[in-house]
C-alpha cells in the first residue's frame, strides 16, 4: 500500500472513530425512587407541639420614642404627611416577586409541621427541600443574605470563598451561618434522623432569614425604592395589618402579641413613608429620616423575634426538639442583646448553651427583659 492509500485509509478510520467518540451524549439523570427512610423516631421531644404553650403576651404600656412614625394616628407624630398616613401599605410595583418566596416558606411550614406535633417524613423533607431550592427561591436569597447590622466586609459575601465567609460570618449570616444549618437539617431530615429537631432548625433558620431580609430590604430601599415592597412582603406576605389570616413572620408575631405586630407594621409604614418623602423615583438622600424609620422597624422586629424565640424556649422544656431552633434564633438576638445589656447578653448566650430544661426558661425570661414592648 502506498503512502496515499495509507493516508486515505487513516483519514477515513480517524474520521469514523472521532465521529463516534465525539458524538456521545451524556446519559440523562436517572430519577431516584421515592425517598423512604420512614418517619424515624422523631427524635427528642417527638410527637409534641411547640405551639402548645403558645399564649398571647399581655403587653404593658409601651413607651415609644417621640420621633416614631405612628400611622395609626398620623396627626400625633412629627413626620411630614406621606403616602403611608392612610395606615395601609402602598406598593411601588404591582408585582412583588418576594411573595413567591413567602409562599414557599408557607408550604415548607405546612409540610414540616412547624410548631405542631407532626413528625415529618423523609419525603416531607425532600419536598420541602425542593421548594427551598426552586430557581430564584429561598435558597438563592439565603445564599446572598448579609446582616446589615454589621459593617460591610471588604467584598460582597457572595463573592467570598469558604475561608473568607468564616472570617466575616456575622456579616455574611446567610451563606456562613444559615445555609449550612439548612443544608444539614434537610440532609438529616431526608435521612430520617431526628426529624422534629431538623424541622425546628429549618423553621428557626427560615424565620431568621425572614428577619434579616426585612431589615436588609429596609436598608437597600435607599437605592431601590421597590425593595420596600420586598420588606413588606417578607414580613406580612403582602397582607394588610388587620388581615384575618396572617402569614410569614407576621403569623408568628401576631399569634403572640397583636401590639408588637402592630408596631412592626408601624415600622414598615415608617420606611414606606420615608421613601415616599425622599426622592421616591431615585436614590434616597435623607439619611437621618431613613435611620429613624429603620431603627423603629428593627426595634419592633427584634421584639417580635424575641417573643417567638421566648415562646419556643418555654416550650422546649416539654418539647425538647424545639430547643435547636431556639439556639438558632437566640444567636441572632444575642448581638442586639449584648449591645443593650452586656451582662444579660452574656447570660443569654450562656443559657443557650445549656439543656432545654435548664436553659429554656432562662432564655425566655432574658429575652422578654432585654426586648421590651417596642
Amino acid at each position: 500500500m502506498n503512502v496515499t492509500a495509507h493516508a486515505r485509509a487513516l483519514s477515513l478510520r480517524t474520521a469514523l472513530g472521532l465521529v463516534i467518540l465525539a458524538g456521545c451524549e451524556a446519559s440523562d439523570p436517572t430519577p431516584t425512587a421515592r425517598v423512604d427512610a420512614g418517619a424515624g423516631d422523631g427524635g427528642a421531644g417527638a410527637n409534641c407541639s411547640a405551639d402548645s404553650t403558645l399564649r398571647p403576651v399581655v403587653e404593658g404600656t409601651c413607651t415609644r420614642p417621640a420621633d416614631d412614625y405612628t400611622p395609626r394616628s398620623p396627626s400625633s407624630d412629627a413626620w411630614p404627611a406621606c403616602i403611608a398616613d392612610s395606615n395601609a401599605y402602598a406598593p411601588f410595583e404591582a408585582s412583588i416577586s418576594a411573595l413567591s418566596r413567602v409562599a414557599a416558606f408557607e408550604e415548607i411550614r405546612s409540610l414540616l409541621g412547624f410548631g405542631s406535633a407532626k413528625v415529618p417524613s423523609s419525603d416531607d423533607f425532600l419536598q420541602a427541600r425542593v421548594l427551598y431550592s426552586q430557581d430564584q427561591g429561598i435558597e438563592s436569597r439565603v445564599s446572598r443574605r448579609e446582616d446589615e447590622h454589621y459593617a460591610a466586609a471588604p467584598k460582597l459575601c457572595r463573592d467570598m470563598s469558604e475561608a473568607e465567609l468564616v472570617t466575616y460570618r456575622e456579616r455574611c449570616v446567610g451563606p456562613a451561618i444559615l445555609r449550612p444549618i439548612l443544608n444539614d437539617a434537610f440532609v438529616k431530615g431526608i435521612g430520617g434522623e431526628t426529624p422534629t429537631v431538623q424541622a425546628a432548625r429549618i423553621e428557626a433558620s427560615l424565620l431568621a432569614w425572614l428577619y434579616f431580609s426585612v431589615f436588609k430590604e429596609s436598608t437597600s430601599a435607599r437605592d431601590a425604592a421597590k425593595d420596600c415592597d420586598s420588606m413588606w412582603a417578607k414580613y406580612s406576605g403582602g397582607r394588610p395589618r388587620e388581615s384575618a389570616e396572617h402569614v410569614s413572620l407576621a403569623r408568628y408575631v401576631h399569634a403572640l402579641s397583636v401590639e408588637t405586630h402592630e408596631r412592626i407594621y408601624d415600622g414598615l409604614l415608617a420606611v414606606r413613608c420615608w421613601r415616599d418623602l425622599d426622592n421616591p423615583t431615585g436614590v434616597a438622600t435623607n439619611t437621618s429620616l431613613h435611620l429613624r424609620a429603620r431603627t423603629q422597624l428593627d426595634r419592633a422586629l427584634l421584639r417580635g423575634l424575641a417573643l417567638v424565640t421566648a415562646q419556643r424556649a418555654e416550650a422546649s422544656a416539654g418539647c425538647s426538639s424545639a430547643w435547636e431552633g431556639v439556639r438558632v434564633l437566640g444567636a441572632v438576638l444575642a448581638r442586639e442583646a449584648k449591645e443593650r445589656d452586656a451582662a444579660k447578653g452574656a447570660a443569654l448566650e450562656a443559657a443557650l448553651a445549656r439543656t432545654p430544661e435548664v436553659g429554656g426558661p432562662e432564655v425566655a425570661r432574658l429575652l422578654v427583659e432585654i426586648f421590651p414592648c417596642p
Partner: protein
Amino acid sequence: MTSSAAIGLVAGVASADTLAADPATARPPAETNAPARLEADLDPEDVTARGGIVGQATSTVTARDMQERLARSTPEALRYEPGVFIQQSAHGQASAYVRGRTGQQTVLLFDGIRLNNASWRQGPNQYLFTVDPRTIGAIEVFRGGASTRFGSDAIGGAIAMTPLEPQEREAGERGAHPRAFGRYGSADDEWSLRVQNDFTLGSNGSALVGFSTRRVGLLRSGGPVFGDGGAPVLVPAFADDGRTQLGTGFGEVTADGRAVFRFGEDARIVAAAYVHRLFDVPRTDQCPAPYAPRSECLRVDEQFRTLAYVAYEDRLGALANRTRAVFSYQRQHERRTLRRPASAIENTGRDAVDTLGASWEATSEAFRLAPRAALTLKHGAEGYFDTLASRSWLAFTDIDVVRELSRGQYVEGSRYLQSGAFAEATLTRGDVALIAGARLGFVAASAPRDASSGTERVDASWWPTAAHATLRWRPAPEWTLLANVDRSFRAPNLDDLTARQQSGPGFLFENANLRPETTLGAEIGVRFEEGPHRAELWAFRSRTRDAIARSYRELGDCPPSTPACTASWSRYQLVNLLGDSTLDGLEASVQAAPWSWLRVRANVSFAYGDGPNPQPAPVLGGSDYAATVPLSRVPPLNGTIELRMAPTRASYASAGLRWATAQTRLAPTDYSDARIPLGGTPGFVVADVRAGVRIDRSAAVFGAIENVGDVAYRTHGSSINGAGRSLVIGFEFGW
C-alpha cells in the same frame, strides 16, 4: 465557455492576491456552481451564486478573509462586514445581528441547508457558533428580507455558508494532501489544532476529512465597562485582577467529512457530515447570575450539532439547468446545568431537536428573448420537520437524589414543520433587470398539553406568503442602481409557543396564541465598481406587522406551577405588537486599491428601530408612558476600516479598526437586562494589526495583535467584554 473554464476564470480572480495556499479548498460560492452555458452578454450576477439573491445588499467573507482575520468563530469572521454586528452572550456563543435583527429573525444556511429550527429563541442565540469556521470556504451575508428564497425567519437577512470542497485533481496528480492548522490566542489561552486530508476516492470522487480540537480558557478583557455615572455592570464577574472574566472558556471537538462523486460532465453527488461538539460552555451572564454567589454557574455541558446530508446536482433540461436536491438530517442537542454547589443543588435541562429536511432548487438556462434580453427562472421547494425532546431535573448532590420536573424548557414530543415553494424570474434587457419572485409557505406547530405545568396544547398552522421585486439599472458600466421591495415573514416557532426560560431581562414564558410576523421592506442602493475599486450605499426601511416582542407581565399572569416565574424580579411573555414596528438604516462600504499592494476597506452601518410599546397605556394615563419605544438591542452606529498591504504574493500586513458609538436607545426590557450597562452600552474604538507570511506552498504563519489599545469594551447586548490586548498566532502546514 466550459464549466472548468468558468471556474478557472473566477478562481483566478479570487486568488490573484490571496495568501491562501489551496484555492480549491477556499473557493467562494460563486464559482462552486458557475453555469456551463453562461451567456457572454448576460450579467454573471444574475446566474451565479447558489442560493444567492440577485440585486440584494450582500457581502462575502472568503476563506482568506477568515484566515487573515484569525477569527475565533464563524460569527467573529463577520465582524468586518457591513450591516453586521456581533453580540456574545457567552465566550462560546455569539450571534450576528444583520440590519438590527438576529437569532430567529435571520436564517442560517450551510451548503444551502437551513440550520434554523423550532427551538431557536428570541434574540441572540449560539447556533452560528456551532459551525466550525475551518470547514467553511466562504460566507455570504444577505442583508434585508429574504423569505422568498429562504422561507420563514429571513426577515432580517440570511447568512449562507459554503463549505470547503475537496480538491479536484488532474490525472497523475498526487492523491492525498494532508494539512494541519494550529492557533494560539493569549487572551484566553486558546490552543486549537485542525488536521485534514484531501484525497481522491476512486476515479471520479474526492473527499475532504477533518478533525479539530480546541481548548479555551478564561478570557482576559481590557477591563470592566461602566454605565451612567460610573455604575458597574452586573455581568460578567471578574477575577481579582479586574480583567479576567469568570464564566468564560470552553472545549470544542469537531469532525467533518465530505465526499464528492462526479458523473459525467454535469452531475455530482455530495455526501457530507459535520459534527460539532462544544463542552463546558458557561453562560457568562449566569455564571454567576447577578447577585448570586460566585460559586454558582449555569453551564452548557454539551452543545452538540450534527448535520449529515446527501445532495444531488445535475442539469435536467432547460428549466432545470442547474438542479440541486438535498436530503438532510440534523440533531441539535443541548444539556445545561445550573450548579449551586454551596447548597448541593443542580438543575439540569436537556433539549434535543431532530430535523429531517428535503429541498429541491433549480435554475433554468437563460432563455434569450431578444438580442440583449433574457429570462432566467429559479424555483424550488423545501420542508424541514422538527421533533423536539425536552426534559429537566433537580438533583441534590449531597444525598444523590434526583427528581424529574414536570416539563423541560420546551414540551416533550412537540413537532414543527417549516415548508414552502417559491418561483423567481430574472428578466434582463440591456442595462435593466427585473427580478421578481414569490413564495407560498406552510408552517405547522404542535405540542401536547401538560396539565401539571399548566401548559396549553398547541395545534397551529399558517400559510404565510412572501414576495419580492428588484429593479436594477446600470446607467454606466461602473454604476449600478438597485431598488428592492420585499415581503418576508417569520412564523412563531416552538420556542415562542411553548418555552419557559430565564432570559437576560427576566423570566420569559410562552404564548400559544401568537401569529406570524410579517415584514414589508424597501431598499435602494447604488454600487460603483471599477477594477478593484468598489463602493456601495444602501438605505432601507422595513415595517413589521404583528411583530413578536416581549411584554412585561405581572405575577398573576405566570403560568401555574412555575415558581421560577413568580420568583423572578421581571417576567415577560411574547406578544404580537398592535401596530407596526419599523427599522430604518443606512449602510455604506468602500473598497479601494490605489496600488496593487495596498487595499483599503471601510464600512459604516446604522439602524434605527421603533415599535409600539408592548405595554398597554395605563388606564389613568401616565406622564412617562411612551406609545412608541425603541426596539430591543438594535446595534448602534458602527463601522470598520481595514488596511491591507501585500508587498509580495507571499506576505501581507494589515490593520483593522472596529468602532461603535454608544447605544442609549433602550427598549423597556433592556432596562432590566443585566448585560446592558445603566443608561446604555458605551461606544468603543478597537484596533487590530495582523501579518502573515507563506514560507512555501506547504507552510504559512499568521499573527495578530488584537485590541492594540487594550480597550475595555463590549458590543451592545453582550454578556462579555471583548478581548484585551493579546496575541494570536496561527500556522498552516501540509504537503
